[in-house]
């Protein structure tokens, strides 16, 4: 067992996910099974090996910093679950 139910609850919080008790148990068992099968990675000697973040080496792609057309506010807000006065609306964040 690599991870406990408590670990899974902690990771779920980080990922902003919620699980019911039976889902937590199933998730813990599945993650342990998957991670156990990945143990063989630890047997590979990677001393001095650079990690790859991309398959094809690309440098920063620069462009001129100039004004270009962008989405109209109505288009940008069209998919919002809730919008008001040209803004995305969310539950109250600051207690008064």
């Amino acid at each position, binding site marked *: 067992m690599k991870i406990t139910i408590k670990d899974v609850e902690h*990771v779920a919080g980080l990922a902003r996910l919620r*699980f019911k008790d039976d889902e937590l148990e199933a*998730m813990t068992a599945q993650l342990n*099974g998957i991670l156990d099968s*990945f143990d063989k990675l630890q047997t*590979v000697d*990677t001393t001095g090996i*650079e990690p790859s973040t991309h398959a094809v080496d690309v440098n920063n792609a620069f462009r001129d910093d100039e004004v270009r057309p962008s989405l109209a506010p109505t288009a940008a807000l069209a998919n919002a679950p809730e919008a008001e006065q040209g803004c995305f609306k969310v539950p109250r964040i600051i207690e008064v």
Partner: protein
Amino acid sequence: MARELYSLTIHELSALLQARTVSAAEALESVISRIEAVDGRVHAYISPTFDVARSQAQAADQRIARGDAGPLTGVPLAIKDILCTEGIRTTCGSRILENFVPPYDATVIGKLKASGAVFTGKTSMDEFAMGSSNETAYFGAVHNPWDLDRVPGGSSGGSAAAVAADECIAALGTDTGGSIRQPASLCGVVGLKPTYGRVSRFGLIAFASSLDQVGPITKDVEDAAMLLSCISGHDPKDSTSIKHEAPDYTRALKKDVKGLRLGIPKEYFIEGLEPQVEKAVREAIDLLKSQGAEIVPVSLPHTEYAVAVYYLIAPAEACSNLARYDGVKYGYRCSQPGNLREMYEQSRSEGFGPEVKRRIMLGTYALSAGYYDAYYKKASQVRTLIRRDFMEAFKTCDLIVTPTAPAPAFKLGEKLSDPLSMYLSDIFTIPTNLAGLPGISLPCGFSEGGLPIGLQIIGNLFAEEQVLHCAYCYEQSTQWHHRKPSLA
């Protein structure tokens, strides 16, 4: 008997359209009637777009009449529902994007529109492209046209099934760990994953950004070359797209493999590979040899670690990419959240399906404090070794030839409750994504039960022309690509 228009390839239909033997409107109506006849059994489409298609076909006919047509003008194509289409719902196979209507087109969609192509609809897929069977799709599983009790593969299962069932002339898919090639293999069609950076990812809903690529799923190799020629090229909107000229890939389709060195990696002919698949692939290699190709044994020693590397790196990238689904700007929001955190957690928990949650959890864990070095960093280092294996192999060969999938299509439900056995379906396709290489799958035989078997040809970075050349040579000496499912 004249063939139905829906059964044609791009190059066949294009020739008829240019000669004005048939109109784009006629071709479209033929495809629509086919969709209406068979999609109730196949379920390849999430959102058919027949109204849009009819006006596109009309515009295509006007272009053809003006003498202003290109090779894709008037050709009905299906689009995987992961590519943003302005004004057309794009769900990514997920409840969380069930009502999302993009305000812009993906770059590849813009290119196809400019070419005058016609869009028959958005095809089904595993949720957020996470799956190898199309069963994690929120809108329901796709059925394999060769055996309706079996999966079409995934995640581009809808596109591959639509091509196999003649519900479109060709389609676009995307491939992160095999999601074009594996379903192409299981559905008996051609699927090409280009080199990473060859095709723009702008407007492709992100799963794992260092692995995702868009590519064609088609009825033959010539069509793959035609579609790739249209969609590839540098895009200033995708900082990882490569500034290489995009050639006309159809020029690479020569019928001679003499002197071509084909590497056969022993690590791809292992226990777990079904004997029928091995037999078909070895016969394909023998055929290429008899045509003058040189067969070279090669070794890719880190192959056995590829699945573990992939299922750490891809979820790590995914958990970051999918953090954007928070119920604020677009997508599903739960009802009556008490506060902001509850809104995030409840919206995501109700909006994502089980496989997506599993991968978000796996990725978040692999990146979390205390585990980063053991999992994410280690996987990224082994990824370097996998890349080096290929670079070493390509010193002695031009292309690498392998099976695409270890077995033909499996039964619906067979692997759904066992994530690990599902992950192993991608064992032969994952390494090319990790190394960024182009790969194609094309039909090379059938199992005793009549299920298609796929041959994979992998090239060096930006060697799509060689890949297509070899695939074309093989295809033109065989008849597999002419077989059609009976859909009984």
